[in-house]
């Protein structure tokens, strides 16, 4: 069993800083346009609907549904070699945006489209944490 390497840290942009700061504190926030009352993900420099550049970040429920997934069984990526098999997924958050992620804390073969999941977090280094998802319990979903 080889050692699990740390994930590559995200190269963050200034306008996404609140997202990453929240993730570091193990909270999921989403970029929101107060003018359109609309969430967007990933965060951009402005609202892609109305060009408003006074965007805010709001706490998300952290709950969502698996839109699609794949079990990665082979990889050429050394940072993930010791993690196979692992689940790469697209999760539809209850706030109406889709997020790219891993589904963890379960057997990869048990993941299903339509499954309810909740946000969890993994610290990469002293500055960065990433948002992951795990199966939601009955009370959460």
């Amino acid at each position: 069993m080889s050692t699990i390497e740390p994930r590559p840290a995200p190269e963050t942009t200034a306008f996404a800083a609140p997202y990453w700061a929240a993730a570091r504190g193990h909270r999921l926030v989403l970029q929101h346009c107060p003018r359109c009352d609309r969430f967007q993900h990933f965060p951009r420099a402005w609202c892609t609907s109305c060009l408003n550049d006074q965007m805010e970040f709001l706490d998300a429920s952290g709950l969502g549904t698996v839109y699609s997934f794949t079990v990665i069984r082979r990889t050429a990526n050394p940072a993930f070699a010791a993690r196979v098999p692992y689940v790469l997924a697209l999760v539809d958050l209850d706030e109406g945006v889709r997020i790219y992620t891993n589904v963890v804390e379960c057997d990869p073969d048990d993941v299903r489209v339509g499954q309810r999941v909740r946000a969890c977090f993994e610290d990469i280094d002293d500055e960065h944490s990433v948002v992951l998802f795990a199966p939601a319990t009955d009370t959460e979903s």
Partner: protein
Amino acid sequence: MDFVARVARDAMLDAALLPVDVDGLLLSPTFLGAPITIASMVADSLGIRPAYCDVVDLGGATAAGMVWRAAAAIAAGECRAVLCVLAEAPDPRPGMRPLSWPGLPLAQWDRQYGPMGATSGYALAATRHAYEYGTTDEQRAKVAVDQRTNACANPTSLFHGTPITVDDVLASPLVCDPLHLLEIVMPCWGATAFVVTRADVARSAPHPPVVLRGFGEQITHASLVSLPDLTRTGIVESAGRAFTGAGVTPADMDLLSVYDCYTITVILTLEDAGFCTKGTGGPFVADHDLTYVGDLPCNTHGGQLSYGQAGLAGGASHVTEAVIQLRGAAGERQVADCGLAFVNGNGGILAEQCSLVLERGGS
């Protein structure tokens, strides 16, 4: 440059044009780390003085995108013969090729989750397609099998002489569920070049001309979170405009030459271009014969799955195969009475789409 020079010369010889006759140049952006004004440097190396010179950057849709750009420049009267060159070669400086750039979505939102190149992205599309429409592994495998049969009639394909069965595909290792190894393209190095020119110039060339009858292009996203429905691609728009512009329908096509980085890509293309209805691509490929003698000849060179994917030049093989078939020059794999072909280029993870309708022209 060796690849580029060789295929560029072949294309000019094929078109019976000299460098002095060529006044347009389009290049694939494969010269990563290359200095700015690379297109001019290549033009000078080839002895061309272009009135129209550019790099087209649409991933696997680059070749198809070059065809209509060249045609549009010619139609605008800016030039008369455009040489299009796509090449993929090992970077002589290891580690130079950037996987992503700071500030772009991939570096911030994707890579910490360990995507497996494009393969995991297409696997997500395949999972969703199976979930929504019941598409089976066997149905996807049929695409790889029929295309391998085609490759066995094409001596220039990487997998010539090695037929496979559906069982072989399903027995090959799962790489990213539900995609098996034999549902994934075979990378290689190579280059492709072709000339787009005016009808009167083409008529004086030694080969029967092939006419661009219609085209359409659509870019929908880069990150997968921006594509609302992973089973519905921009091919709906790109192919729709190509068919409308040509005044024809999918049923009129004698040949399909469509991007096939993965088996699921072909199924999505058949649905979104209108060869079958949404969701029925699985049964459709199972019920039709995609080989060169079949009722729906598709990727008769073997497709990139079996011919090989020489980077962006791999996407160009769908353009050149359609031209070869429409000329009646495909030899053993020639489709009988091939008059109209549908070509689709696909870039990124279903992100860039460019569709063409090509027709065998009169002499």
